[in-house]
């Protein structure tokens, strides 16, 4: 009975946090706009660069439908954007937790008969929901774009993309929860969000394929679990296009070369990490982050009471 009431209190807190976030239309719009602006900038300035890069993998004289080549470039860019946003949006959306600390609203929860851990995990879950909604909206807009320029994604892959978004969002919100547990000012939140927004795209190989880095740097970045979130997304966005290239007569060697160049295949110390391994590493990191988050919550609660 007590557990049921505590879980109802938990659900009420998640509902309040999520509602609180969406009450600020500007906040939601900015979370959505930033990745979309990035998508527009990618398409405007980098699309041709990536189209040329894809074409470099083609054998002499290989001709292909423009929709296929435009589509694969767009899909690759969208996979980058979604995987980066899963972390950057999570860091920004955690503003509900930080605001509650700044404005003192958290005291109102702390004087209520609700466990400290319930309050903290509710912040995490509501941030997960918000980030997942924002990412799903970006995905839908991105898919409309892909449908316009060239859609070759299978239904199974489209479904797996949603699974990838779920996994990446889980990773992003847990990472944000751990890092931002120590932040209690608006300035601190801005500083961390700026740092993460500017760095994460590069260190996860989302903005630049890891294949373009030196071997040492590539191995170092492959030690970071976020890289595998990007890899998962790349696989499911590119599979359909690779199959279409194959159907169009592109040799297997060229397809493998393309997958290697664009990080659909990831290698750690020369050994290829299979797709299931990517999920394992990312979800393993989630388990570690969740344990760290719970430990921080317990220590913080013990300090107070």
């Amino acid at each position, binding site marked *: 009975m007590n557990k049921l*009431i505590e879980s*109802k*209190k938990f659900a*009420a*807190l998640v*509902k*309040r946090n999520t*509602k*609180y976030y969406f*009450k*600020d239309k500007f906040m939601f719009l900015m979370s959505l706009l930033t990745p979309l602006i990035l998508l527009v900038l990618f398409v405007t300035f980098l699309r041709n660069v990536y189209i040329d890069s894809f074409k470099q993998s083609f054998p002499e004289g290989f001709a292909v439908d423009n929709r296929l080549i435009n589509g694969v470039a767009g899909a690759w860019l969208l996979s980058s954007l979604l995987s980066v946003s899963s972390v950057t949006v999570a860091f920004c959306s955690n503003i509900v937790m930080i605001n509650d600390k700044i*404005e*003192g*609203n958290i*005291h*109102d*929860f*702390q*004087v*209520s*008969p*609700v466990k400290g851990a319930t309050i903290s995990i509710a912040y995490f879950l509501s941030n997960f929901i918000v980030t997942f909604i924002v990412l799903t909206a970006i995905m839908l807009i991105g898919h409309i774009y892909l449908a316009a320029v060239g859609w070759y994604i299978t239904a199974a892959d489209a479904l797996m993309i949603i699974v990838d978004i779920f996994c990446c969002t889980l990773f992003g919100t847990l990472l944000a929860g751990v890092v931002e547990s120590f932040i209690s000012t608006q300035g601190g939140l801005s500083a961390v969000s700026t740092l993460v927004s500017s760095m994460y795209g590069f260190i996860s190989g989302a903005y630049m394929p890891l294949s373009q880095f030196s071997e040492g740097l590539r191995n170092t970045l492959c030690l970071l679990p976020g890289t595998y979130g990007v890899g998962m997304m790349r696989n499911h966005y590119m599979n359909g296009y690779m199959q279409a290239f194959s159907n169009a007569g592109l040799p297997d060697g060229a397809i493998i070369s393309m997958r290697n160049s664009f990080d659909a295949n990831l290698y750690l110390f020369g050994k290829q990490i299979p797709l299931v391994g990517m999920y394992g590493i990312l979800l393993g990191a989630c388990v570690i982050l969740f344990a760290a988050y719970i430990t921080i919550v317990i220590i913080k609660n013990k*300090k*107070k*009471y």
Partner: protein
Amino acid sequence: MIIEIENLKKSFKDVNAVDDISFKVKEGELFAFLGVNGAGKSTTINIISGTLKKDAGSVKVCGYNIDENADSIKSEIGIVFQNSVLDKKMSVYDNLESRANLYGIFGSEFKTRLEEISTLLDFKDIIKRPLNKLSGGQKRRIDIARALLHNPKLLILDEPTTGLDPKTRITVWNVIEKLRKEKNLTVFLTTHYMEEAANADYVVILDGGKKVAEGTPHDLKNKFASDFIKFYSNLNQAEKALTELGLPIKRERDYLEAELESTAYVSKIFKLYPELFVDFEVLKGNMDNVFLKVTGKDLREV
């Protein structure tokens, strides 16, 4: 007793925020906790409300020991914070619903409670409005409503009228008085306003984390505050006469004030100098005088 605190201690590094204080609060009374900022009022409230760990001493609220039953205590107290801690962009309804849920009040039970409380505090007409669109008095009423959602036995008011205009302060106090009368609610008040403390049943004054005085306002005034007589005419004559009597006097532009040992001393002056008593008044010492006497600090200046 609704609150029993004995030898409570709490320090932050080398600052003794609460230094060995003991006091009791009876059920149904208006209890005032006085002190300047940093006196230890908020630290004590945070310990009572279970959000801060004490270093030593014992705290019992509504019969529960805070070390064993912090959650039971939380269910029995409602707190109105100095600054509103509700969600400004959300409606009154959403705010109260989300907070009621934390006390296990859901669905129809919440709606019934909201109906009762909105009638009691008269805010039915603003229930759908966002909090940031309300006036200061309306916001304060909602803060009080939030604190009362779960029918607490003890209402803690942490400087509830600080920053409010005089009219709103009166409104807030009318609400509190109504609650005390109708619900026999125990009210634990911290305030900077001495006139509010003067209406309390019992007062504890803190200074530097220590309890420096306690008692009913009447007892405290008798013990620590002098009475005064003010003359508004024959000022020169009055100054001469009162100086002869050896009374401490203060001459202002249009009156002369003398501090008296007791009100009874007035009859002695009247017998000796009846001609002075044309335009005058006798004032009982007030809580400002008490506070100044026991702490050496004037609350109006800190």
